[in-house]
């Protein structure tokens, strides 16, 4: 960890007495000395996000070294895609992310469309926007529950996961699936909105806001929560670029960047997305920012529902997708997921199968470089809260 040891961001630089000695950039941990204990958080642990493990070296309650371990979830999607025709990649990618599969669907379809030079029809773009924004709501609700749960407030987790299920009901009506929607097919989307969908969605927005009011009262304006999250896992503005930090994690540290605004895709360019930022950079600031972003998503869904065209094609004129060859080329397509920049890098060699697909997820750095950095110097009991506040999602790391 040479780079980390030289790091200027570490909070513990001043008093190193209880930390392990560094040699050649690696901490020398002498477990025999009885100063340190090695502790595994995960791979099965309610306090880790998904299937990953953090190998901790602790001194008393305090973490002195942390190392992220992956590999509990590897399904080789990228490799599998190289052996599948383009259309067959479509059901694979959503599985990269449970809480927010649609970003993957969007990116993989958009990458294919970009390489093949396909124009997606207007109505399909709107439906995609709706789908993406709804999936952000679903993801944030899950995160909210996780953040509260990680600090011992399981009840909030039940509320928000329950509410997320109502959103999944809507997904089910719209796409035919609850968790994996498989909705954005190359060239467009698979279905139009079912009858009465708009009304039910509008109703649900109202209910969700009611719930959020409760959550705000019990969680965000809760003295205990504040005392635990404030000052935890501070990301300084300098760190943002250095570590490739994106999304709410970056915005809470003052970075004014949201792909929906800065590189608008689907119909975001025509929507009034506001740049939400904070300058504090700690876990509480991130939580509060996500909470505001969730409200913004509800606003956006309302607006999208009003603006989706009622008729028009939902798929571009496509060739036989069983024999679909995409001209050789390379592209990178990205979207703003709730965790930040989510992108697909796709290389075509002109055949009917992709040469290489790489899914870039925000957690790639958040859960490893950044987490390993921020975990040091905090108490074991805060690690779970920290991980959730970075909104890490292991499947993005092992695709």
């Amino acid at each position, binding site marked *: 960890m040479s780079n980390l040891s030289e790091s200027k961001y570490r909070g513990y630089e001043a008093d190193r007495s209880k930390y392990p000695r560094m040699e050649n950039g690696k901490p020398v941990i002498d477990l025999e000395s009885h100063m340190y204990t090695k502790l595994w958080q995960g791979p099965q642990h309610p306090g880790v996000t998904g299937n990953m493990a953090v190998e901790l070296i602790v001194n008393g309650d305090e973490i002195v070294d942390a190392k992220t371990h992956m590999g509990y979830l590897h399904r080789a999607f990228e490799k599998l895609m190289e052996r599948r025709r383009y259309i067959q990649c479509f059901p694979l990618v959503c599985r990269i992310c449970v809480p927010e599969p649609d970003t993957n669907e969007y990116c993989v379809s958009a990458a294919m469309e970009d390489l093949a030079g396909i124009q997606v029809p207007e109505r399909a773009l709107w439906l995609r926007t709706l789908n993406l924004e709804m999936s952000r709501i679903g993801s944030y609700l899950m995160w909210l529950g996780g953040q509260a749960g990680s600090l011992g407030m399981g009840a909030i987790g039940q509320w928000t996961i329950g509410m997320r299920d109502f959103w999944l009901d809507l997904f089910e009506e719209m796409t035919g699936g609850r968790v994996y929607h498989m909705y954005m097919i190359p060239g467009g989307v698979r279905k139009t909105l079912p009858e009465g969908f708009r009304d039910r969605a509008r109703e649900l927005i109202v*209910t969700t806001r009611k719930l959020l009011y409760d959550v705000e009262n019990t969680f965000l304006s809760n003295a205990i929560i504040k005392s635990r999250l404030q000052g935890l896992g501070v990301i300084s503005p300098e760190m943002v670029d250095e570590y490739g930090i994106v999304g709410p994690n970056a915005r809470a540290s003052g970075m004014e960047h949201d792909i929906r605004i800065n590189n608008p895709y689907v119909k975001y360019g025509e929507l009034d997305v506001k740049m939400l930022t904070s300058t504090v950079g700690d876990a509480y600031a991130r939580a509060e920012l996500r909470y505001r972003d969730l409200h913004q998503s509800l606003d956006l869904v309302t607006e999208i529902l009003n603006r989706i065209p009622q008729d028009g094609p939902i798929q571009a004129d496509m060739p036989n997708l069983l024999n679909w060859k995409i001209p050789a080329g390379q592209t990178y397509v990205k979207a703003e997921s709730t965790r930040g920049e989510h992108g697909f890098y796709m290389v075509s060699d002109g055949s009917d199968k992709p040469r290489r697909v790489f899914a870039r997820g925000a957690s790639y750095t958040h859960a490893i470089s950044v987490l390993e950095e921020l975990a040091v110097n905090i108490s074991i009991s805060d690690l779970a809260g920290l991980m959730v506040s970075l909104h890490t999602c292991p499947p993005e790391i092992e695709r």
Partner: protein
Amino acid sequence: MKLKDVLSPLRVWERAAKKPMTIKDPINDRPGAVNYRGFHKNDFSKCIGCGSCEEICQNDAIDLVPVEGQETVEGDSGLRPMIDYGRCCWCALCVDVCPTGALTMSNEYTWIADNPEDYRFVPGADKTAWQDSEKGYTRSPDIQILDYERVDMQELEPEERDKSFIEIVKGYNKEQAMKEAERCLECGLCIATCPAHMDIPGYIAAIRDDDIDNALRILYETNPMPEICGRICTHKCETVCALHNNGDPLAIRWLKRYIVDQVPADKYSEILGTDHLEDEVLNRKVAIIGAGPAGLSAAYYLAIMGYKTKVYEALPDPGGMVRYGIPEYRLPYDQIDKDIDYIRSLGVEIQFNTRVGTDITLEELHGSYDAVFAGTGLHLGRSTRVPGADNKRVYFATDLLREVTLGNEIDVAENIVVIGGGNVAMDITRTLARLQNLKYGKVQVLATCLEAEDIMPADVEEVVEAREENAVIDPGWGPKEIEIRDGKVYGLHVVKCLSVFDENGRFSPKFDEDQKKFFKADMVVESIGQGMDLSYLSEGIKSDLKFSPRGRIEVDDSFQSSLQWLFVGGDIIQGPDVIHGIANGYIAAKGIDTYLNKK
């Protein structure tokens, strides 16, 4: 710490008095959405066993298996998808791809069984609670996984074509052909329907790979007349194309034509590997009667197997009805020549202007050859036998078409009526329209037939195009009498035809004698079918041959007649169309080879 932050969480107690947001009994209160992707359903009456579902499933969850009660017939393999729910990921790509719309999903997703094997079944065959459920995911009509739209074929405009015999269909260029070839699903259902069982998906794949040489080799495996078939084949294969269930069938015929149009004649022998044919190795000779598709196809395959073959042909040029029947605007003569010249280049000798039976007898052929193949076609016109049909200005369509090919002048009248509603009738109608146009500058030809418009045997395009060329098609009338005045044709009297077939499907037309019509004409052409001329069979041979009750020579699977040395094929046995002739000739050639090897 602010006091507000300590108190505010307590607010949540307000909720205790309010209606809960949750649902009490979700499974029952809220079943799967109408659109839910649950267990599959398959409508066997629609499924054709094409295997597209298996092909697209990226989880390898589908096997195509035979199912009791499902026959293998043309256009339906009889196989049905079996789904392994241990692998299925419920993506419904199989539903979206299914060209028949047979495969759908129910909104059922809860099901418990003790035996894991239960989760592998054939939807539609194995009884499930949801097979008849109305709800569940279906393919949206707004999206396409397959491409159901044929690449347009460029054709001459009616104004350009109605005064000339220039070929109407222009053929695909490379880009169009590749695009059309991309539409193929490679299910192969068409192969069983093609009489010559050509490897259609094979040569279409070769087009996609832009490997024209290989495509040509595939064509010649069972069909030595691809230029001809690529233009005028009856393309039965296209009727069973899986895409036809939801859109345009693949333009198989045009793609075949595309392949051969790409290859110059002088490249054939090199590509097909016939540049070093062994000469007369077998020292056996076969005589062939008739240089039509059947005879030439037999000659080709005999030649590449090393037999010396000689064709006896009554007319001055080869091709049979392909040349003397089919009009030039559908099939130009140079394209016929391209196919046939290649066959002749392999050492197939054709002796023209020699009618077997008059110029040389069948017995003589039997004497000097080891085997004989006869493919003499249907060349005798059939008459309606209505009063007046014996007038000299009443013709048979095939006779006129032959005269046109021979280059002989026809005394085209200003006002012509054609009796008949098949493709031959359309051919003669459109030929006469052109001749009238050239001679009089206007068209006055009318075709009438028993069948009403919707059951006319001619292809719809033929009828449409004939009308575009200003011919009148007035179907649904039965000819009564050709009125003759002063020895000249005056016109045709018809009565309304109510139905053509009886309940048992037998030909038995019914008329309404009160509904009459009169078509003025000074020339009438009959085009109601052709008969065979077997006069070359001497009485001796005839008595040794077995005939079917309907007068056809009986042959076995290899087109061998009851006289072992005589093989018979083409229109006089099966068809009538070119591809059957070709297939017959192909099998007969293999049959002759077997027969001679045994002898």
